[in-house]
């Protein structure tokens, strides 16, 4: 009743091609963006930024990247942690070698470096598929983390192999380092994520995205209709790694401020992002955000609810949290194997008929 397509005519190609064809969606999105950019910064504190919003935005960026590769192009990757490490170390090296470099440029360049590394490790995808490719990318994960541990040049010979971010400024505003205002860090990440989510949306519904999806659905058929696997697969690896690299740079520079490779970029990170993509919905932009929200925010919500709300001991709450997360993941995968994004679509379809279903 409130949410319907009937009577909403599209009079032009432009209207037909809009990302949000339904006015309600469009309005909701605009309201959300205005609130995120102009409302949230005023009510932020350190806790909300550090523990909730930055992780959500940065993991969303990483999930977007992996979704391009795994969800749209069908290439399973377990190298996300390693690629994030490339982004982080590239950002660190750039920031320490060229202190004057604009931080926006640092993040973009870190993404580009990662895109190159990602393409290199994507080469095996031309020959191998599925589980075998997963194993090949797993090798990338272990190799990259080992490399950043082993070669002192990457961490500027620091005594402990830790990298820590130097302060950097944009238009006089500090965006990295401990003195950063919470809203500055938040807005910086939010802007990056919004711009690149929009870009991703447009790439995947254009020629390149269709090429990827053709490869995903059946690579032989795609080749027969003229899609070149080399270009399609490597471009997917490049774009995906670009996003993951930027996520790694933001993760290290804006959110954590200091990192060591084994813990911050371990194999568990690769799995975490893969789960985000699977739970959020393979092959969907919204799904990347939903998956990141589910896996990052729900544990914190559970923790706070159980400790502060119900009054459990922190250790008991932690055990309950681990168990609940496991159960919820299984529950969602059984109820809707296509992820949270599909659940949202079903909800929308139901809303169209509500309150007079037939």
């Amino acid at each position: 009743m409130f949410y319907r397509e009937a009577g909403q005519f599209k009079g032009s190609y432009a209207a037909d091609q809009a990302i949000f064809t339904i006015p309600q969606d469009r309005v909701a999105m605009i309201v959300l963006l205005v609130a995120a950019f102009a409302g949230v910064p005023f009510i932020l504190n350190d806790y909300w930024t550090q523990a909730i919003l930055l992780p959500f935005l940065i993991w969303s960026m990483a999930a977007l990247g992996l979704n391009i590769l795994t969800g749209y192009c069908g290439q399973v990757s377990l190298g996300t942690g390693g690629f994030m490490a490339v982004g982080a170390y590239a950002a660190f090296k750039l920031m320490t070698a060229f202190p004057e470099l604009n931080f926006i440029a640092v993040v973009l360049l870190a993404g580009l470096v990662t895109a190159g590394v990602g393409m290199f490790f994507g080469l095996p995808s031309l020959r191998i598929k599925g589980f075998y490719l997963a194993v090949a990318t797993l090798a990338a994960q272990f190799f990259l983390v080992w490399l950043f541990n082993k070669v002192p040049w990457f961490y500027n010979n620091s005594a402990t192999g830790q990298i820590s971010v130097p302060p950097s400024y944009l238009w006089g505003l500090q965006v990295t380092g401990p003195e950063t205002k919470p809203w500055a860090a938040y807005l910086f990440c939010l802007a990056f994520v919004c711009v690149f989510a929009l870009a991703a949306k447009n790439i995947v519904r254009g020629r390149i995205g269709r090429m990827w999806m053709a490869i995903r659905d059946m690579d032989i058929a795609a080749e027969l209709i003229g899609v070149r696997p080399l270009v399609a697969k490597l471009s997917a690896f490049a774009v995906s790694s670009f996003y993951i690299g930027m996520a790694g740079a933001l993760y290290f520079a804006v959110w954590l401020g200091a990192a060591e490779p084994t813990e911050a970029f371990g194999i568990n990170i690769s799995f975490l992002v893969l789960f985000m993509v699977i739970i959020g919905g393979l092959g969907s932009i919204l799904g990347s955000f939903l998956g990141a929200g589910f896996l990052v925010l729900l544990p914190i919500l559970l923790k706070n609810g159980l400790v502060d709300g119900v009054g459990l001991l922190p250790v008991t709450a932690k055990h309950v949290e681990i168990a609940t997360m496991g159960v919820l993941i299984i529950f969602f995968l059984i109820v809707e194997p296509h992820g949270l994004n599909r659940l949202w679509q079903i909800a929308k379809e139901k809303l169209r008929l509500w309150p007079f279903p037939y």
Partner: protein
Amino acid sequence: MKLGKFCLGLGVVALAAGTITGGASAYELTYPSLVYRTGPYAPNGIPFANGVMDYFTLINERDGGIEGAKVNVVECETAYNTQQGVECYEKTKNEGESGALVYQPLSTGITYQLIPKVTADGIPLFTMGYGRTSAADGTIFPWVFNFPATYWDQASVFVKYIGEKEGGMDKLKGKKIALVYHNSAYGKEPIRTLQKLAEKHGYDLLELPVDHPGQEQKATWLQIRRERPDWVLMWGWGVMNQVAIKEAASIGYPMDHFIGVWWSGSENDVMPAGAQADGYLSGTFHAAGDQFPAHQDIYKYVYDKDMGAGERDRVGEVLYNRGLIAAAWTAEAMRKAMEIKGSVEIKAADVRKGLEQLEMSPERMKELGLEGLTVPIEISCADHEGPGTVAIQQWNAKDKKWSLVTDFMTPDQEVVNALIKEDAEAYAKENNITPVDCPMDFEEAKKASTEYSSQGAKVAE
């Protein structure tokens, strides 16, 4: 709907309980306790957390708090994970009337993460015998304290001990020493010192990293079996310790040539290897056991009232006692802060002053019922590390007891102090820090505190 109402009810009850306890008018001191009672590091995290908790419960129950102000210990679970550690830090830093007074993350990774944050927020960070070694230099790290000794002191003391056992430092030439370390900031801390000392004494250093969480060490110990180092040092934590000691036993490595850092020397680490762990050595800065008057008070005021954080028969374990000392030093720093301020209503910045002027004489330790548990310490503006002396303890598998086999040994301060200075200066330069003006410079202050400590550096067996 029913569930919703139930949850609402629970919320109301919790809220009511909150207002009742919060209704007391006295000033409350918030001590955020970042703990890890889950995950691969829990075997070591739990006893430490219990020691801290029990000591503050004792203070509250027996003395009615510190100078009348009760301590509110807020536990937050980090699982030894830096991201969760940061979440806990942000969550607890403004808790209560006083705000978080001091942090002790018990994790070198989280420490590195928090050093810039606490400096910006103005909250002291007390990393007792772990964390960033160069934070010993108080002129550059005014908010960070790492007394009573650092990893670099320990590395140097271990080499000294090996030299003694081999019959003189000149006998170290050509010897092979292996370092089995947790492949993280924590495990890498001693490497530079050991390398410097290798240059000085001419031994070969074999570096063997073990990746988190450390359950898989077959390859490492195979390498040790092949290379046959004369001594093995270990920088391990959590599950890694038990696995390493078991692996060492299985290749028949002599336990009295295997020295762990003080985080690798507790009951939990040696028990799984059973009788084979007999003779294993580790560094320490305090005694084990529950023979001290404070422990008797803990039984009486905490465990008899059923308020203990852990199990009664684990009171007095190595890591439990370490938690106890951490809490005792913190409580004394708070007391000092109240003395300086002349009021109980202290904030984090006051506790920093308290830590900086902390003086724990043998007499004061006796008053606390902790006489002979650890060395006396005196902290100053420039020296945040204290004496830096380390003793070595040995495990007796038959009696299930740790006992000290050496006196407190002074590290090679010439080498260690130079390294600390170099690293601290590099950090200051990287982060544009102007050193704080202190009455004494770092080396003088360090000398003074070593002298102070030696007056009563006798620890009860």
